[in-house]
């Protein structure tokens, strides 16, 4: 009986999360058809879906795995550019948008997930907070690499360069696909709000079901106590890498949505740089570390609020900065952790004496 109740409890909580997303989607649809949503806000809906997926996926790393990633936008960037490249190349080959988009999603997720593995292997094997530093570097490197990357295609095949589009040496029938700082122009605009919401639900399905499974339990056990997890035979490196690469792959999905909503995709500090990584982290921290539903709501509020209250948007970054610094200090600095542990220990001892 008790077991049934427990299973129902987590299932119920998950269903509520799905229901919230669907209800919000329906509300937006109704408001749109009533003409109550400005075109400016409407333009934000698809990026918002990408941000929500990024926040949920980052929460998998920060809240469930317990590691800090400061370069989540880097994985988004990988997903965005690989998928945009694919979609542009195959725009004629695969005329059915739905099929093309499905492949684009798989490619974006796979590329970002692979980067997650490559970054994670050196960083997660070490004991300590190395992931934050390595992901921070990764995010910046990816952004800069994309900016010097030129890829063209002509009847002879693909041409690469890191100098400029002229040195690609394309034949007259050729076309520049990735044009360095000018990025990718003419990606089919396959992302819609509906597709975005479906992908949010898929992301939630993956993350929530992972958390409440054998692997998720292992991941959270490692988060709570690595030494104890090892002592009961849990392969720490394996599960850390698994969680982190799934998180990176889902960030890649966010990138795919983002890329297929833009006429021109460029890698700027604003969209794929450190600022974006921090913004996503703010969603996670404010929504509650480990709280998936909170990440969704924080992403929605913090993305839409500045647009609804335009006047406040100057202060937005200020509020971000203050809250972020405060939360970071409290959550991550060794002194604060020590202080917290000392106090919780004291509290525990006191309780024990009372008994």
């Amino acid at each position, binding site marked *: 009986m008790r077991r049934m109740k427990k299973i129902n409890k987590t299932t119920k909580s998950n269903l509520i999360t799905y229901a919230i997303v669907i209800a919000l989607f329906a509300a937006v649809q109704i408001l749109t058809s009533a003409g109550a949503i400005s075109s400016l806000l409407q333009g934000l809906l698809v990026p918002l879906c990408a941000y929500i997926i990024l926040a949920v996926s980052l929460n998998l790393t920060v809240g469930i795995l317990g590691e800090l990633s400061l370069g989540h936008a880097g994985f988004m960037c990988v997903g965005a550019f690989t998928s945009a490249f694919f979609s542009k190349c195959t725009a004629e080959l695969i005329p059915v948008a739905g099929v093309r988009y499905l492949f684009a999603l798989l490619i974006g997720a796979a590329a970002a997930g692979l980067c997650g593995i490559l970054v994670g292997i050196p960083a997660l094997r070490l004991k300590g907070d190395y992931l934050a530093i390595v992901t921070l570097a990764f995010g910046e490197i990816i952004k800069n690499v994309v900016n010097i990357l030129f890829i063209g295609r002509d009847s002879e095949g693909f041409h690469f360069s890191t100098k400029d589009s002229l040195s690609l040496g394309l034949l007259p029938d050729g076309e520049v696909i990735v044009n360095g700082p000018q990025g990718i122009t003419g990606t089919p605009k396959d992302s819609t709000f509906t597709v975005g919401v479906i992908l949010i639900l898929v992301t939630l399905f993956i993350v929530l*079901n992972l958390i409440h*499974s054998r692997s998720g339990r*292992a991941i959270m*056990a490692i*988060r*709570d106590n690595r030494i*104890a997890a090892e002592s*009961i035979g849990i392969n720490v490196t394996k599960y850390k890498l698994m969680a982190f690469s799934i998180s990176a792959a889902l960030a890649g999905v966010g990138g795919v949505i983002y890329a297929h909503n833009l006429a021109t995709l460029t890698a700027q500090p604003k969209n794929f740089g450190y600022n974006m990584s921090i913004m996503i982290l703010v969603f996670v921290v404010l929504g509650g570390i480990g709280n998936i539903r909170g990440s969704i709501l924080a992403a929605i509020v913090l993305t839409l609020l500045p647009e609804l209250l335009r006047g406040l948007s100057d202060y937005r970054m200020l509020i971000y900065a203050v809250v972020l610094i405060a939360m970071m200090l409290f959550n991550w600095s060794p002194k604060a952790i020590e202080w917290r542990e000392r106090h919780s220990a004291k509290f*525990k001892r006191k309780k024990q004496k009372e008994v």
Partner: protein
Amino acid sequence: MALLEVKNLGISFGGLRAVNAFHLNIEKGCLYGLIGPNGAGKTTVFNLLTGVYRPDEGIILLDGENIVGKKTIEINKTGIARTFQNIRLFKELSVKDNVKAGLHNHYRYSTLEGIFRLPNYYKKEKEMDEKAMKLLSVFDLDQEADTLAANLPYGKQRKLEITRALATNPKLLLLDEPAAGMNPNETKELMETIRFVRDTFDMTILLIEHDMKLVSGICEKLTVLNFGEALCEGDASDVLHDPEVIKAYLGE
């Protein structure tokens, strides 16, 4: 043949010789005590046995197999589970999930089966739930199955750690000061539980303890550790009356 055979074990931390020429023989089914003053190297012996530290020299045979150099994970799979002097629970997981984490290697299904909720997920989770509840009821923790581990009172946290270790189905169970911080009543109850575990699971148990009542009450054999070396060993009653032991340790 002894279940655990340790020969000439030694480790140094910088200039400090924490364990030196240590040897130990534990027969299957024995309740064995490791005692000694603070800083004698008892916990270090546990860390050597479980692969947390790698010894500078010596061999450790579990069921005849040398486990020196193996990783902690491998050693657990070979059959040694432990608890910690400073409790190490998965605090943000429920009591039941702590035990289910201990069952990790015994009820397997893949990550994809978990995400897509394939039949094997339901089957294995159900089996795990049943096994976990059974183990919890041995320790009288089944009422608290859904409580967060962090919210358990101290004595129950110690018991949960033992439950979790047992869940990995070990041949040898290492308990590092299981009664630390418990009141006399809890200690008495714990002694009964330890004896019960040994009898019902046919377990071999090596425990570190400062509480002499517990040690003399349940340990059949003892080794006294002093400055990293085995000072004395043998039947509990003999060891506890050894003049040298009394001088080095009990006489304080």
